[in-house]
């Protein structure tokens, strides 16, 4: 093989290696696909009863990435589809699944008990956590997380729709609100971000 050819090969490799190093060094912090909280805010405490009577405290979950979703079991479409999306992302975590927790909190405490919430999420994955409480317990949580909630008119059978914020919120391992997604976010994007958060060392912007 002649000299010039060897140089061409080396030069190409060198150029690409240089470009890779430059990209890594100029590296911006990981590009999340969700909307980032900027600056990060500590996630307000959530202290609600689980189905088995134990208390769930968000601040005890540090070290895990927690996905929070607010909805209700009588929700016709948005909640089941969102939970199905979260299930997709969760399933594809593989061995990282134990570092992620998915929590479904009700906006309809009159009909949803902790038990009925847990029964509901169990249909998606038994490791998901369903939480409820009294309206008095839940109101501060809704307020602090900025969750809009409006009960619709009751129909003849007493059923009603609850309009509610459908965003998915993500709390990182350090207990900060880090990301949120709109309704309809693709599970692949959520998974992508979850992996970034799981592999995060210290807190990053």
């Amino acid at each position, binding site marked *: *093989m*002649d000299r010039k*050819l060897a140089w*061409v*090969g080396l030069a*190409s*490799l060198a*150029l*690409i290696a240089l*470009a*890779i190093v430059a*990209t*890594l060094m100029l590296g911006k912090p990981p*590009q999340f*696909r969700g909307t980032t909280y900027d600056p990060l805010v500590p996630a307000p405490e959530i202290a609600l009863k689980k189905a088995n009577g134990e208390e769930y405290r968000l601040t005890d979950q540090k070290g895990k990435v927690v996905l929070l979703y607010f909805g209700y079991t009588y929700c016709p479409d948005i909640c089941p589809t969102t939970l199905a999306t979260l299930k997709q992302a969760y399933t594809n975590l593989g061995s990282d699944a134990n570092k992620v927790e998915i929590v479904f909190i009700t906006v309809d405490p009159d009909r949803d008990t902790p038990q009925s919430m847990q029964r509901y999420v169990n249909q998606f994955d038994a490791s998901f956590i369903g939480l409820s409480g009294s309206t008095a317990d839940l109101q501060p949580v809704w307020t602090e997380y900025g969750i809009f909630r409006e009960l619709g008119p009751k129909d003849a059978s007493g059923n009603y729709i609850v309009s509610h914020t459908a965003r998915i919120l993500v709390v990182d391992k350090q207990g900060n609100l880090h990301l949120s997604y709109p309704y309809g976010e*693709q599970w*692949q*994007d959520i998974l*992508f971000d979850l992996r970034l958060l799981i592999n995060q060392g210290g807190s990053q912007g």
Partner: protein
Amino acid sequence: MASTSMTHSQDKASALSQGLVIFIYLAILTGIEFFIALTMDSAPLLVLVAIVKAGLVAYYYMHIYRLTAVEAETDHHSYAYKLVSNRIGLWLFLLSDSFVFGGLLTTRIYLLGPTRPALNQFLGLTVTAVLLVSSFFMNRAETSMEHGDRKSFLLNATLTMLLGVAFLLGVVAVEWPNAIREGVTPASGTAGAVFFMMTGMHAFHVFTGVLFLLVVLRNARRGLYSAEKHWAVEAATVYWHFVDLVWIFFYPALYLIGKLIG
């Protein structure tokens, strides 16, 4: 025999080994490209690798520098003169064809932006490898013809053609049904439309390349070409490498660059 002598500027052995070395470079670069796609979310890097690969193909396989190797030919009816104008004509054609592919690439960038469709990566890498190997054999075939080795030309050109057919089957018979099964169809939205338009247009060019090779193979078998006169072989070669070059950009554009959607 002025300008035709440039095809003998290298001896056969070194020309063949050069072709192999370039193929190895291309293979390594493709591996690096795949690695970058897996580990870094960097479109500029992937474009850079594609440009380097394209440069290697354009220079060493398509020998674009022959366009400038024009010696003053006084006899406008000489083969040498016609060869020069043939080359210009061919490259002008390739330029116009580039507008088609460039337009499709622009459409992809405009419609899909920083996202890409969910496609089978293994399939994508496989058909890419098949096309690269086919270019290796095409180069080998051309080199053989340039040195008067008809048998070797026939063998290598046939291999090229068969690999081209394999590529076509890989795209049309495997990748397309697979995409359709995954919900990516020509009518399923912008991603599907872009995917089928790009791969379809490209596959059509591979198909015409195969036809071109069939004609050239038939003529070669009848002894129509020699080391000194084989313009059709050179044209088929350059066209074939052009189709490979397009895929060098289309592959990352469809399979590697951007975030997954759906």
